[in-house]
């Protein structure tokens, strides 16, 4: 792999990567769409939103020209409401619950939410003020949607909040991991700025566990929230993984989104993406936009088991991405310069149902074959920050930090956890919106616990 970060992406490819794939509503579209809203009583869209945004109320604001009010309603319930407007699987959430599904077509809630929050961004609106200081101090580790939301709510409640962030900029995967054509970095950074404006200090470039010790945090702060999300894509565990031309999808996206570079030119290349979840879709569609000639998603199960959402599947197909079901990579083969040139695969079939209720893929005997590839993108999920979790000494289940589902307290009562770090093994979904809600709830829980102990000691 070359270590110099040359600008290997042409200007037009870059433009393609950074231009939002869904155009935003203009004022007239927003008014037309908002006027279609029935303004239901006890509206199901509110319940379907994990953060409980009062959807009919904000839509009414758009319809009446009170866009600031609309933006405030959204951001009040969801501190990352501008991001969510773009990345939420709305078909499964608010829009899926819209009663108009039963008569005409649902209200495009995501687009309206985007319209209102974009307006607030463009017009530099100040939507919230920090609460009066209560003298207590909370540490949050990680500034992704979970950490940010917790910080925002705590600041409104009057807490002093310090967020430790390993990266150079805040926002977590919103800033770094979600492809720019679905979520521009500026949107996420605006949300970070909103939280900072409340007096929250985000100390970037500090990795907890390395630059600062867990026990110090636990000692110094009234409470600590662990919101570190998940880590890199796991190793495939096959031969040839270290070859040049083999990428971790999340690193790839981050490199393009933050630095506008790739290690090599994707133009005209044949790309194989391993996995069929949300990350694989992002890895595949960004490869297509970077100019790859052919992009294939390789998945060991079938369309039915794939975890990507229907709209993501459609989106990828529109980008020309091909899907190859029931096959799994066995070995990566390099050329004489140590760059991947072929991938050996085996065909799979579905066997017995496993613990997770999904049928297990098993290899079909004597079915190996090779395909020519120029680039391999690994996107088979994310690993856990096992070292950090152990460093804290928290109970976990295979890297999934265990919390009390009501209080978000970990096995160490002063330490709370929210977001992807508690996702998995039947606990919730890895979504920005649920991370945000968990962050909020962890904040309320801390507030409750700290006030309780004050009352008890008084």
């Amino acid at each position, binding site marked *: 792999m070359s270590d110099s970060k040359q600008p290997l992406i042409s200007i037009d490819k870059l433009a393609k990567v950074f231009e939002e794939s869904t155009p935003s509503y203009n004022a007239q579209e927003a008014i037309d769409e908002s*006027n279609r809203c*029935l303004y239901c*009583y*006890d509206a199901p869209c509110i319940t379907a939103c994990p953060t409980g945004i009062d959807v009919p109320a904000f839509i009414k604001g758009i319809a009446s020209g009170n866009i600031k009010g609309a933006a405030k309603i959204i951001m009040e319930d969801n501190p990352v409401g501008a991001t969510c407007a773009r990345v939420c699987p709305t078909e499964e959430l608010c829009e899926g619950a819209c*009663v108009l599904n*039963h*008569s005409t077509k649902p209200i495009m809630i995501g687009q309206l939410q985007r319209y209102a929050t974009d307006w607030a961004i463009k017009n530099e609106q100040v939507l919230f003020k920090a609460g009066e200081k209560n003298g207590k101090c909370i540490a949050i580790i990680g500034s992704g949607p979970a950490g940010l939301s917790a910080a925002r709510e705590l600041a409104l409640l009057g807490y002093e909040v310090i967020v430790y962030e390993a990266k150079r900029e805040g926002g977590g995967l919103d800033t770094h991991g979600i492809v720019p054509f679905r979520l521009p970095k500026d949107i996420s950074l605006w949300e970070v700025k909103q939280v900072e404006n409340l007096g929250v200090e985000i100390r970037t470039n500090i990795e907890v566990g390395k630059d600062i010790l867990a026990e110090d945090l636990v000692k110094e702060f009234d409470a600590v929230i662990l919101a570190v999300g998940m880590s890199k894509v796991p190793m495939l565990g096959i031969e040839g993984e270290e070859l040049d031309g083999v990428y971790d999808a999340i690193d790839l996206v981050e490199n393009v989104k933050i630095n506008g570079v790739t290690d090599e030119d994707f133009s005209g290349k044949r790309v194989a993406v391993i996995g069929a979840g949300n990350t694989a879709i992002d890895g595949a569609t960004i490869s297509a936009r970077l100019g790859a000639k052919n992009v294939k998603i390789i998945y060991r199960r079938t369309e039915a088991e794939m975890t990507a959402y229907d709209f993501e599947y459609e989106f990828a197909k529109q980008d020309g991405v091909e899907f190859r079901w029931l096959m799994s990579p066995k070995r990566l083969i390099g050329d004489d310069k140590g760059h991947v040139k072929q991938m050996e695969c085996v065909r799979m079939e579905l066997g017995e149902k496993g613990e997770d209720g999904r049928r297990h893929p098993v290899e079909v005997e004597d079915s190996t074959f090779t395909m020519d590839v120029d680039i391999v993108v690994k996107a088979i999920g994310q690993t856990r920050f096992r070292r950090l979790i152990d460093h804290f000494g928290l109970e976990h289940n295979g890297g999934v930090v265990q919390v009390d589902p009501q209080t978000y307290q970990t096995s160490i009562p002063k330490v709370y956890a929210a977001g992807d770090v508690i996702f998995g093994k039947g606990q919730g979904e890895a979504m920005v919106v649920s991370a945000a809600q968990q962050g909020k709830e962890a904040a309320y829980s801390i507030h409750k616990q700290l006030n309780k102990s004050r009352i008890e000691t008084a």
Partner: protein
Amino acid sequence: MADLRIDFAGIKSPNPYWLASAPPTNSGYQVQRAFEAGWGGAVWKTLGDPVLNVSSRFGANHFNGKRVVGFNNIELITDRPLEDNLKEIYETKKRFPDHPIIASLMVEPKREKWHEIVKRVQDVGVDGFELNLGCPHGMSERGMGSAVGQHPDLVEKTTIYAKEKAEVPVIVKLTPNITDITVTAKAAARGGADAISMINTINSLIGIDLDTWNTIPNVNGKGAHGGYCGPAVKPIALNMVGECARDPEINIPISGIGGISSWQDTVEFMLMGAGGVQVCTAAMHHGFRVIEDMVDGLNNYLDEKGISSVNEIIGASVEKYTDWSNLDLNYKVVARINNDICINCNKCYISCEDSAHQCIDILTDANGKEYLKVQEEECVGCNLCSIVCPVEGAIDMVELPQTEPSMTWLERQAAIQQS
């Protein structure tokens, strides 16, 4: 194909649609385009002594994203020289002899003034006159328009003046800016009017600009009340037509005007007694070709109903329009919700709960799914729920079998008196 021809107070028209006296009938060029597009007749933009107009002049009421629910203007009568108008009326009539042109007139309520204008216009050849006793703005401050139309005696006198010289039918156009339109309608009849038309526009102010605090529309920072028309005024106009149609003392044809934008509106006005209709705002909003669907839709409606001539529907609903005291107190309808069509927006629930009689319940079925049900004993049959319901067919207002004989309030009072 139903026969759409009408004979309105002796004025023959290929269909019941006339353009009302307004900007669309301002010139020969426009009226000829309108006839080409399919309009039956035209009431020429009001002629009178030359006036000056202001800029701007129009405003509109937009509601919930729908443009032009209502329209308002502070325009006066024609600002073009009378000779030009007369020349163009002559030319248009020559090109379209079968399409009636009615000259709208407005002068001061003086005998010689009316005699003079009626004679001059009559000489070029028109099919009828319409006396504009209705414009509510500007001209009324000079003692014309609604300043005349609001005084029954002036209405009668003016009609007499015009009739003294007119050799073609005279229609008197009434103003709605009055408590009881049947009073001025009767005055017109007494004066010998061949027909009446209604309504002219309603006194109105469209709005205030939230940034400049100027009125809408404004003329260099000042505004004056204007005349309201368009879809929003239809119910007001329809009632006025109905009130005149059912009055036994008013026995002359009525030309229905006010908010007519479709063939459905037209059918309603004609059922309520209009012998023909006039349209302004719909043409201003969408252009002359709106006439195509108005004609076609009317035709298909009549065909479907097996009615051979549009004249057969005129006044068919009039006998159903009566005083409140004649309504049956023992008749009852209740709301019934069709749960298979209902989409559970709960709008009926909250409207009944907050503003009617608290008789819709949100219940849960055996599968845990919510559904709505009306407590029929409590329902007063007000219609509110079915009005707010966004889905056709989800709420029916059903008649309950009558348990007691019909009784109106008048009958009830009479019975109490007897006992």
